[in-house]
């Protein structure tokens, strides 16, 4: 009994309670449009790419690797997929493999810049991000790439027993990320590296390997997200990737106040994503569908949540 109470402690799961509050508000406000299976499906689908990218970023940030390039890598990945399928008529499986491998390469390059050359991760990934953007622009001439074969779109954007495939992919990635970070030794070592790199090194942890794993995870996630992005949008959109940068970071920092406060963690991030997702979707259904309202909501929610967490920490420290 005590353990259940412990698990549901407000401080660690305040996000879940706020999520419930949101759902209640929208259910009372717009019951006809909000309380539908299609709404749930929409929210899940809309957040699936954010979810996959967030899990990758949790791994990188946990290891102390500040990755700014994942969103652009996903964008360039989707352009790569668009060109491979539309211009070279490559089959779906091979395309997916190549795009994911591309994501892995981005991760490895980032980790080499940090581990071998000694750049700070922010600078390194800012640089690779810009290079990826350049590749993106060069490949597309800043135009949309149309003519994506139907086979690709249906393969990625289909449903399995009524559940959108992208949602299944997200759930799989979330479970994998949680398993690696919480229930394997390398995950623990990544957290140790991000937490105190020198202490971890002196305890025998190979910190450069942790950083490699972190970047690799976020690169792989970007590759997967690139494939999903092309499937969902249906055309190669050179601006689609970078738009994920802010929401993913918002979800991550929101998530670091949840479940395991003070640590970037997968389940906390999932709460963060759906807190923001439900809020935005609900507002849209209630007629506030302007982009600026969503952005304002995301920003204010992030600021409030983290400010609350910081306050809490300083209070408990005294």
């Amino acid at each position, binding site marked *: 009994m005590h353990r259940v109470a412990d698990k549901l402690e407000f401080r660690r799961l305040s996000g879940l309670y706020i999520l419930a509050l949101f759902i209640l508000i929208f259910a009372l406000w717009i019951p006809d449009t909000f309380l539908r299976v299609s709404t749930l499906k929409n929210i899940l689908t809309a957040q699936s790419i954010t979810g996959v990218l967030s899990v990758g970023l949790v791994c990188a940030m946990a290891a102390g690797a500040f990755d700014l390039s994942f969103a652009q890598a996903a964008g360039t990945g989707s352009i790569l997929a668009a060109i491979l399928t539309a211009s070279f008529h490559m089959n779906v499986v091979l395309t997916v493999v190549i795009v994911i491998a591309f994501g892995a390469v981005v991760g490895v390059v980032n980790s080499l810049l940090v581990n071998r050359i000694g750049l700070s991760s922010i600078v390194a990934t800012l640089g690779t991000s810009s290079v990826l953007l350049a590749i993106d622009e060069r490949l597309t001439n800043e135009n949309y790439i149309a003519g994506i074969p139907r086979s690709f779109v249906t393969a990625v954007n289909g449903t399995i027993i009524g559940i959108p495939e992208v949602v299944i992919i997200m759930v799989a990635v979330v479970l994998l990320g949680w398993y690696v970070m919480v*229930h394997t030794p390398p995950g623990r070592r990544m957290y140790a590296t991000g937490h*105190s790199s020198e*202490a971890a090194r*002196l*305890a025998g942890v190979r910190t450069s390997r942790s950083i490699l794993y972190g970047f690799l995870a976020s690169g792989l996630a970007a590759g997967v997200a690139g494939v999903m992005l092309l499937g969902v949008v249906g055309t190669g959109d050179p601006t689609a990737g970078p738009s994920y940068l802010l929401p993913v970071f918002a979800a991550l920092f929101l998530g670091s106040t949840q479940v395991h406060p003070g640590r970037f963690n997968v389940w906390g991030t999932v709460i963060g994503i759906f807190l923001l997702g439900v809020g935005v979707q609900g507002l849209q259904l209630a007629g506030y569908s302007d982009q600026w309202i969503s952005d304002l909501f995301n920003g204010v929610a992030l600021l409030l949540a983290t400010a609350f967490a910081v306050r809490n920490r300083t209070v408990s420290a005294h």
Partner: protein
Amino acid sequence: MNNVLKLEGVTKSFGAYKALDDVSVDFRRGEVHGILGVNGSGKSTLLKCVAGYHVPDSGKAFVSGSELPWGSPEAAAKHGIRFIHQDLGLVNELSVIDNLALGTTYEGRAWISDRRERKRALQLLRQVGIDVDPLAPVSQLTKTEQTMLAVARAMRNGFSENDVLLLDEPTASLSSGEVRILFELLRSLSRRGVAIGFVSHRLREVLEICDRVSVLRNGRCVASRYTDGLSEKELVDLLVGVPLSEVYGRKKEPVASPRVLLEVHGLCGGALHRLDLRLHEGEVLGIAGLDGSGREQVSRLLVGADAWESGHIVLDGKTFDRLNPDVTVQHKVAYVPADRKSHSILPGFSLRENVTLARIGTRRKGWLSIRDEKRDSAHWLDRVHVDQRNVELPISLLSGGNQQRVVIARWLRFGARVMVLDEPTQGVDVAGRSAIYDCLSDASRVGTGLIIVSTDSEELVSVCDRVLVLFEGRVALDLDRDALLAGGTHVLDRAILSGANQAEGVTGAY
């Protein structure tokens, strides 16, 4: 009215520990006054009281006749008392000029003129007599030049006969040639009437530069006299006190085992010029030495945390020309750093995660079970007598002594065969200390070899089977159990202060 700064009956306690006990010292115009004492004798505390960092429990200070209020750095500065702390307080990335200008106010100036600053800086450097490139960043200066720059900065508002300059261990990281240059500068300042206070424990230097010395021992000022006619031997006697015949009680019989766990040949790096050592199973080996003797570098070099310049280390019969911590850990060599907060524990991690860090894993392959891990780490916490109910608390909430024991539990669980500990009881209270010693002696009883690097002579004498004394980067003396038993801390302190010569003379007498 010869004395510029006069301290009367200064007493300062930290809890039950009396760091300063009725200390009276004065600093006179144009005189270089050495404050001497072994580690923990209270000399830093005394300086910190004058600087306004500590407030004494009782006692008074007078500057040129008027009373100096305690606990106010501003008042000390206003009265012309200048400090040079051991770390010098310079900003390495900034240029000489910028460092000299740092902290001066620009009030009433709308435009900060580089040229005006340069002119002032050059004038000051000339005045003090330092020849350095004023545009060079401080990091490119030699250690002596940096120290002299710190002196110049302390004197930037001009100096007069009523000024006092107090230096805390300014020579700790300087070679003897470099020390001479610094001394010339201090001499020239004292000729101009500045009163100079000089905290050190390097005897030869003190005899060379100081007109007068005051010796602190266990928080008391045991002597204050002119250096004329004072010999190094006498000074050592003053510092260490008259040897007692008391024999240190020891619990442990040495393990009679010839197996060598770790061999070091000609290790060289930083201030350490040459280290050879051999660590046997179950042996507790101490390493002592002054600041700057190479003692600070030893532990990090031994575990490969810093690269060494030459020499090699033999582990498990394999010879290494370079090492990384992950390799030493693979060979079951553990490291317990002195800087607990940022090099040893992971502050936000739970006790459980701190204990298991060196070897993460539970029974089942492919699934790290938190429940198994909890049970496992609770067992090891129990072994070092840390309350196992705290297993999920962040380690930062524990006291220093408990944190240290958690780190020791980490390495016991790991199965370390060698543990290198740097200042294992630094900042730990008495009760915590004895608990740590118990953990360590348990470890050595099962054959773990321990290397304890420490500035605490009492600790070394009562815990170690053998102590190596470093002096100017080399092993000056190898004190075995018999010598330690016979001589106690006195023989060790003598060796630490003045190398082999002094101590040999003393050990010979026993």
